[in-house]
C-alpha cells in the first residue's frame, strides 16, 4: 500500500463534497472532483465517477441542490450548491470527524 496515494476513506466523500461546495460556491461534478484532487495534492486516488452517486445522495437529503447551467467550455452541465441544511451538516460532520481522529490518535499513542 502506497503511503502517498490512498483511496477515499470510507464515509468521507460526502463531507468532502459538502466542504468543496461550501468553500467554492456552485460547482459541477467535474469541478468538485478537481477541487478535491487539488486539495489532496496527489495524495488521494479519486475515481471521479464516484462523485455522482454521492451528489445524488446529498441532494436527496436536502443538503445540496442542483440546476442546469453552462460550463466554462460552453457545455451544458449541472451545477451544485450547498443549502443551509448542508452547512449545518458540515458542522456535525466536523465534530464527528474530530472525535474519530482524537480516538484513533489516542489508540495510536498507546502503541509501543
Amino acid at each position, binding site marked *: 500500500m502506497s503511503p502517498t496515494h490512498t483511496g477515499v476513506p470510507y464515509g468521507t466523500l460526502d463531507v468532502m463534497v459538502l466542504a468543496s461546495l461550501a468553500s467554492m460556491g456552485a460547482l459541477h461534478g467535474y469541478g468538485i472532483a478537481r477541487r478535491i484532487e487539488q486539495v489532496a495534492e496527489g495524495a488521494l486516488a479519486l475515481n471521479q*465517477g*464516484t462523485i*455522482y*452517486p454521492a451528489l445524488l445522495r446529498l441532494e*436527496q437529503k436536502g*443538503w445540496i441542490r442542483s440546476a442546469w447551467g453552462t*460550463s466554462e467550455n460552453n457545455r451544458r452541465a*449541472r451545477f451544485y450548491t450547498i443549502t443551509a441544511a448542508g452547512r449545518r451538516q458540515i458542522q456535525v460532520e466536523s465534530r464527528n470527524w474530530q472525535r474519530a481522529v482524537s480516538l484513533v490518535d489516542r489508540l495510536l499513542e498507546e502503541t509501543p
Partner: protein
Amino acid sequence: MTTLRAFVARLRALFIRDRRLSEEIESHLHALTEEHRRRGLSEEEARAAARRAFGNALMAEDYRAQERLPFVDAAWQDFKLSWRRVRSRGASGVLTVGLLALALGASTTVFSAADSFVFNRTPFPNQSRVAVILSTYPRTGVSDYLPPSAVAAWRRHADIFSQVAVHWRAGSSLVSHNGVTEAIGTRLVSANLFGTLGVQPAFGRPFLTADESDAQSVAMVSHRLATWLFGDATQAVGRVLPLDGARPRIIGVMPPSFRFAGAADEIWRPLDLPSWDETSGVQHVVELAPGASLTSAAKAVAGRATLVHGGDVTRRPTAVSLQSLSGSNADGRTRILFLSLAGGALALLLLGCPPAVDASPRRIPSPSGSTVRSGLAGRRCISGSCPCPCLPHRGRRDDG
C-alpha cells in the same frame, strides 16, 4: 426528516425517470479529455486517460441504486423474469400455474370452511331465512341505509316478510370497571331484531316493543362483557351497566357465540324508531315469510321498491334490492378490497411459479428416439449426448 426526504425522493424516482446522469457523465468526460489534451496528449490518448480518471465501471449501477428503491426494482425484475419463464414454458407452464392456483384455492377453501364450521359457528340459527334490504348507488356499488319510514312500509308486505327489523351502529361506549376503561362497540336495535335472527339471550329476556320508547333505561350485553363486569354472566341481569354518562339496567346477556353484522358489538340498546331522524338511515333486516324464497322475495322487492320508497324524503338515486345476510357485506369498497387482495395474491403466485415450473418433470428426447424424464429440466443433461439445448452433465465431461 432527512431520511423521510430521501425516501420521498427515491419513491418519486420510481415514477419520474431522470436522465441527467448520462448527460453529466458526457460533460464530465469532455472536460477531462480537454484537460488531457491541453497537457499534450492526442485526442485518442486524452479520451482514454479521461476514461481512466473517471473510472468505476459500476458507478452507474451505484447511482441507480441510490436514485431509486432497489427492493422495488428487484421485485419488478423478478416479476418480469417470472412472467418470461412461465411464457417460455407454454402449455406446461400454464398447466403448472393452473394446478398451483387450484391448490392454493383449495387450501383457502378448506381453511375458510374450517374457520366457519369449527372456530366460528353460525352465530344465529335463522341465517338461511334472514336477508337484508339494501339501498345501493348504481354507479359506485356503495350501499346506503334506508330511511326509517321504510320499516312500516315493508312490514305491510307480509306475503314476503314475516318480520322487518332495523339496527344502527352507534359507535363505542366507554365502560369503566376496576379502574380500567374499555371502548365497547354499541348497536341500537329494534325490539324484534333478535327474534328475526332467531336467537335468544342466554340469560334474562330480549327487548320488548315497550322498551323502544324507554331506550335510555335498558341494555343487553355480550357474554364476555357481562363476565368481565360481574365475574359471572348469570349475575349480570338486573345490574346497572356502568356506561360513561348513562346507567341503563341490563335485561339480557347474549350467548357467548353470538356475533352480528360482522362487528364486535357487545352492547345493544333499543332503537326508538318514531323519534329517529328521517334523513338518517337505518339498516333493515328481514325474515322471509313461510313459503317465500330469497329469489322470489328479491323479485318482489325489486318490483315494489318504487311503491314503498316513493316517499323517500332523502330522494337518493339508489337501487333497492334484497340480499342474503352473508352476501350483504360485499359492498363496493369490499369488492375493491377483495380485488386488490386477489391481485396481490396473483402477483405472489406468479413470482412463486418459476421454481415450480422448472422443477416440473420435462420430457427430453434421447438419441434412440425414446424420452428421458428429467427433474432438472434445462439445467443439466443426464445423458450428456442428447441434442437438447441443455448443459453437459458436470460429472461426466467426456461424454458431453
